[in-house]
């Protein structure tokens, strides 16, 4: 039988770097999945775990998943880019969700959204360069009585007008500064 380990075999090196890109828990989970006859069918579950930990799917992490689960990288990114749930960019500290449901839309959500884009200098799906805010659109949040509604992290802000946007953002900037000072950063 032929020796499978030669000086040109980079398998272990690639594997080691893949493990470093993830956490031990995720690696252990992938290893359980990899033993399954249909290892590739666990891809979505693995990506969920990666996103839960890192907040998004980074290039290094997706490549690591490909190597450890032995699923082609083009398939991993194909799945990651297909589902809206998966994020390929890091999320900001405050995720702003603008409700674009019917009621909010009718009551001027679009104008609020435009003002948010303008103030933050980003489009929907993007994150500000300082990493503070991400902007996303969402469907009905179930609080149509307060329309138009935006949600920052888990707090709802109702009856929004474009003019309220700057003060609301400023409040979160100050909150972040306060938190940083408390944490001694």
């Amino acid at each position: 039988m032929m020796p499978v380990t030669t000086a040109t075999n980079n398998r272990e090196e690639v594997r080691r770097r893949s493990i470093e890109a993830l956490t031990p828990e995720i690696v252990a989970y992938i290893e359980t999945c990899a033993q399954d006859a249909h290892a590739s069918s666990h891809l979505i579950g693995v990506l969920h775990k990666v996103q839960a930990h890192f907040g998004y799917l980074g290039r290094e992490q997706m490549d690591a998943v490909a190597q450890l689960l032995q699923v082609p990288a083009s398939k991993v990114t194909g799945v990651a880019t297909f589902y809206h749930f998966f994020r390929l960019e890091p999320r900001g500290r405050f995720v702003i969700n603008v409700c674009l449901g019917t009621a909010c839309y009718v009551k001027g959500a679009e104008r609020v959204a435009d003002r948010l884009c303008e103030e933050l200098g980003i489009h929907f799906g993007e994150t500000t360069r300082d990493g503070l805010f991400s902007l996303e659109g969402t469907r009905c949040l179930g609080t149509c009585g307060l329309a138009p509604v935006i949600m920052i992290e888990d707090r709802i802000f109702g009856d929004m007008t474009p003019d309220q946007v700057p003060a609301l953002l400023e409040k979160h900037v100050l909150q972040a500064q306060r938190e940083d000072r408390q944490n001694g950063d």
Partner: protein
Amino acid sequence: MVTLTIDDVKVTVPKDTTIMAAAETQLGIKIPRLCYHPDLSMQGSCRVCIVEVKGVPFYMASCSVNVWEGMEVQTNSPAIRQARRDIVELLLDNHPRACLTCDRDGNCELQNVAYATGVRERLFAGERKRFPIEEDGSAVDRNPEKCILCGRCVRTCEEVQGVHNLSQQGRGFTTVVSPAHNDNMDGSVCIQCGQCIAACPTAAFTEHDNTEAVWKALADPKKHVVAQTAPAIRATIGEGFGMALGTPATGKLVTALRRLGFDRVFDTNFTADLTIVEEATEFLNRFQKGERLPLLTSCSPGWVNFLEKFYPELIPYASTCRSPMAMMSSLLKSYYAEQTGIDPKDIFVVGIMPCTAKKFESRRPELRTADGLPETDAVLTTRELTWMIKNYGINLAALPDGSFDSPLGESSGAADIFGTTGGVMEAALRMAVEKITGAPPETMEFADVRAVEGLRERELKVNDQLTLRVGVANGLTNAKTLLDAVLSGEKEFHIIEVMACPGGCIGGGGQPYPPEGYRIFDKRLLAKRAEALYSIDGAKTVRSSNHNPAIKKLYTDYLGTPGGDKAHKLLHTRYQPRLPRGIR
């Protein structure tokens, strides 16, 4: 058997026949199609092949629906003809209106289907997808705006080549076929074989153009422009000029190249012979020492890329012989330059190759002169050369025969068959058997290794003491099967020949698009092209590489002994693992 009616005609076909196949085999009706290919898995995404089935409230894709008893199919009712035309129009309306300036103008499946389905005006107007065009790669360019998402390239890359580089990314209107992370081809696991170009019905993939660089060199009086033509070109170049499929056009090819202005026309076949002498010597050395077997052949640059990215642990088993093109370029800028007194910097070497991976190979840092210049300055595919000849206004079919320049133009029959799967193996066996037994083989034709199938394993009895076990694979999914069996210890071989493309170089990623009535991977097409090469070989008196007098002379005058120091410096190379590592 199942009985049904197609266009009111009763037909009986075996169970599990598709509607498309039943219409074609029983009634000769070729239902238009784009995403369908018989050698690839079913996708059913283009919807061009829809038909009406009585009792079914929607149109069915005839490529992917099997017939049933009593089925009533209409392939050409007014409603279905209208629907089919609408579908093609919608494809066109999300496609650049660039037919006049497109590489595939006149040879485009989308264009043909648009004509055949009767699209005469474009009714729908709307947003069209926009994507960056990748045209700075070394071998394969990508224009996703021309992509119709039929998935033929994706399935080819995955199922035929086992590379899985291409996949659909994103969703809906912004879906794009690309490597992982939308990386460019050179930065991905792509092995540059160019089968995506062959598989594409439009021009979403094309070879990276080198014709401009060649025109420029030809017009430069200071440049000594030298062509070398791969074994497989002579079997296919005639196709673009109306010559019958499988007609060898060696002499006409030489004349055409001279008329284009090449100063010398040499034959890569010469260095194919040289490859055999070096490779057979390498094999015999390893065989006698009983080490590093099987020897893996190394003339297919797509396969070499695959080795480096997917099977780097097998690198020590690969022959260190350069490809015949690289050997020729190396000799042109050393031996030939010395003989003629021309400064190697003024020699412009153009490889005429059936292959896109050769373009990538020509950029490899290990294949450069001491001054850092590429030994091969430009590589043209068969398609690019066909265009250049037409562009010049030459009808190749009407040209008189010319002959290659000496001495790098003489070759044995063994070199001709390099261009087809099994050919390198057969050429090596012709010499190796003689070296092992001390006498030439009884027959030069090793019929056992001939065929255009993807995978062959054979035992060849050399004499009473020795039987050689050989493996031949074309298409890298087939190569995987052999290599995995070797790695697991399940099988042992002395030599494995791998060619990246289905059928070998005759089915290369740079070969002419199949003529009317044929398709890529088509065994009938490959067999005809292979037959051209076997016929050239059969007509030669010298059929074994080691008996080529010009090769013997080159060793005496310049190289020394096969496998010797000088030969090693000029004719051999090294490989290294490359990232990203492929998933196999």
